[in-house]
């Protein structure tokens, strides 16, 4: 059982949780993830570690409330417990070879680039960042990026905050003007990462992406998260979650991400009784 130390609602469907898990904080590094179960018959769902604090024993995760399991989590109050929390899983981000990095986060994927911005800031190795979302309400960790990055750009689909348009448009503009940036680290929905990798390729920059594949165990046991990288089958949970963007077969990954969409779409919500269309 793990206690919810803090619960912060960022918007209607985006909630940040700090979960008490001192064992996880001891070896957690940026780029790794955890798997949690809300209750005894819950699914195992993976979330990237946004922050890990050895002193408080708290692990921060950012959750978009989209399906039955995340709705069950959202129904939990601060101070209540969830049944399981395991990690840190996967490999840590490796940006050692990068001279200057631009972080690109789309929607909830911003949770993955936030710890990178913080880690690089703490090392005195400044980076740029582009954060995109549908509207201003869905932009997360604004202050962190403003504080930690050389340049922090924000994009919204509706223009309610920052640049009106997609992160890829902004990225092209930045790469055009700043040739010192050699690496793009992108995290977000698969089609967005695919588009970002195309832009990076066009400007001849390296790209790194973090895949949010479907998982069960998170330790290499089931192969549910398998993805083709450079013609070889890799497991996002143990070989990743981060891979060289140019080598990832995004079309296959996009197809595999729909594996249970039919089942989930017709899921009858146990909490509200309504049939959720999770599209």
């Amino acid at each position: 059982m793990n206690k919810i130390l803090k619960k912060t609602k960022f918007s209607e469907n985006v909630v940040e949780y700090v979960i008490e898990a001192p064992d996880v904080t001891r070896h957690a590094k940026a780029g790794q993830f955890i798997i949690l179960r809300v209750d005894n018959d819950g699914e195992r769902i993976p979330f990237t570690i946004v922050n890990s604090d050895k002193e408080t024993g708290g692990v921060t995760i950012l959750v978009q409330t989209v399906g039955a399991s995340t709705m069950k989590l959202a129904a939990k109050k601060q101070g209540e417990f969830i049944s399981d929390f395991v990690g840190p899983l996967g490999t840590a981000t490796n940006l050692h070879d990068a001279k200057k990095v631009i972080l690109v986060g789309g929607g909830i994927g911003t949770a993955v680039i936030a710890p990178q911005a913080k880690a690089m800031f703490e090392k005195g190795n400044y980076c740029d960042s582009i954060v995109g979302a549908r509207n201003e309400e869905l932009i997360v960790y604004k202050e962190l990026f403003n504080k930690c990055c050389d340049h922090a750009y924000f994009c919204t689909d509706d223009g309610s905050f920052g640049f009106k348009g997609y992160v890829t448009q902004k990225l092209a503009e930045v790469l055009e003007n700043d040739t010192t940036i050699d690496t793009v680290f992108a995290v977000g929905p698969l089609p967005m990462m695919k588009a970002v990798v195309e832009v990076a390729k066009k400007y001849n920059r390296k790209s790194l992406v973090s895949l949010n594949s479907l998982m069960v165990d998170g330790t290499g046991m089931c192969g549910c998260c398998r993805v083709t990288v450079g013609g070889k089958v890799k497991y996002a949970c143990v070989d990743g979650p981060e891979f060289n963007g140019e080598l990832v077969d995004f079309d296959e990954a996009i197809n595999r991400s729909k594996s249970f969409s039919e089942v989930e779409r017709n899921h009858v919500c146990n909490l509200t009784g309504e049939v959720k269309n999770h599209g």
Partner: protein
Amino acid sequence: MARIDRQHMVEQQPNVRNKNFDEVCSGFTDETAMIEASRCLNCKNAPCVSGCPVNVQIPEFITLVKEGKFLEAGETVANNNSLGSICGRVCPQEIQCEGKCIRAKMEGAVSIGGLERFVSDKMLDNGNIKKVTKSNGKSVGIVGSGPSSLACATDLKKAGFDVTIYEAFHKLGGVLVYGIPEFRLPKEDIVQKEIDNVLKLGVEVKLNTVIGKTIMMEELLESHDAVFIGSGAGLPYFLGIEGENLRGVFSANEYLTRVNLMQAYKADSSTPIPRPTNCIVVGGGNVAMDGARTALRLGANVTVVYRRGMEEMPARFEEIGHAEEEGVKFQILTSPVKLIGDGGVVTHMVVEKMELGAPDASGRRSPVSVPNSEYKIPCDMAIIAVGTSPNPIITGSMKELQTNKRGTLIVDENNMTTVPNVYAGGDAVTGAATVILAMGAGRNSAKAIIEKLG
């Protein structure tokens, strides 16, 4: 002695059980158990015992069954096998104890597995297990909670060690809970009770702990005098053929984990599971049979595709027989070539016919493809059950732990790895094998640890 035929355990009818997840076989009644026990010739040299990897004293316990002393019989089994209810159900008895039974060549071996299960089940609810209070001040950390770890933990705890089991999942049991289905090995009534009996001895547990990630091997060695690795062989092999990453293609591990550990077989489960019309299972081992029979119960027409013949199948005879009775179809001497799909979803498996050539390294005749014999089988789901290898997380986190080419840990005759005071056993050492061999290795490791540190 009058001829008495091998007694049969009570089984659900095939056309009933293939629609539910209740246990196929409900075992012997007191009466049939005693009749079956009377068939034992009580051979002086007890060939059956030599066929048992953990040396269960078979004639002794069967003699007690004959006399109606079921709990005493259960205790006799438990002296050598702390998981008798499980082994009675899943051991390949036909190639172990029962294969050596003198009666095997006549009217059928004594149903040793059935009797082991019968007496051990009696013990589950009525056994008198006490917490071990003696302590030798030494402690052992056990990685994983499958059969080898449970056996090792039991023996070490009884010898006075402080024992802590570290399990990556949220539930104890390893392959017993994620791999073997409910209809073959009931989870709450059998597995959990067996595990509870191990815990009653006073064994400590840390769930949700991945060694090599949450806690490093070096840290385990600092907090314990010795470590036993019983982390199994959890990494699935795929075929490496075209179309294997289409939607609808699963490793048996994923499919069975969703259904068993994550309980997708229950109507109110929150774990998604596909409900295909036509399912193909590739492989001929117990895991393939488990996958096939599970998919059948979830409403699919199931075909097992296996590249050798029925006789070469590594699955237990009983599992193959049960699968056939329940309606699983077999296409033997058939090997997958590729999977094809429509809109990213699998629709067919292209297969080719095989014939058997010369025996290979495993002693089985190697399949050779028949030219121009390809054809398509329709399927909207495919389960790949062609074996597993050990998970590399632990070995990857500690370079001194040496493995051989197949990723299995190298151990000496005392089950010690290449790192002092780190022992290993079960599938992590042998590659995918049986519950009972894993238990045997767990017990041998415990013995070596007791001799060295106890």
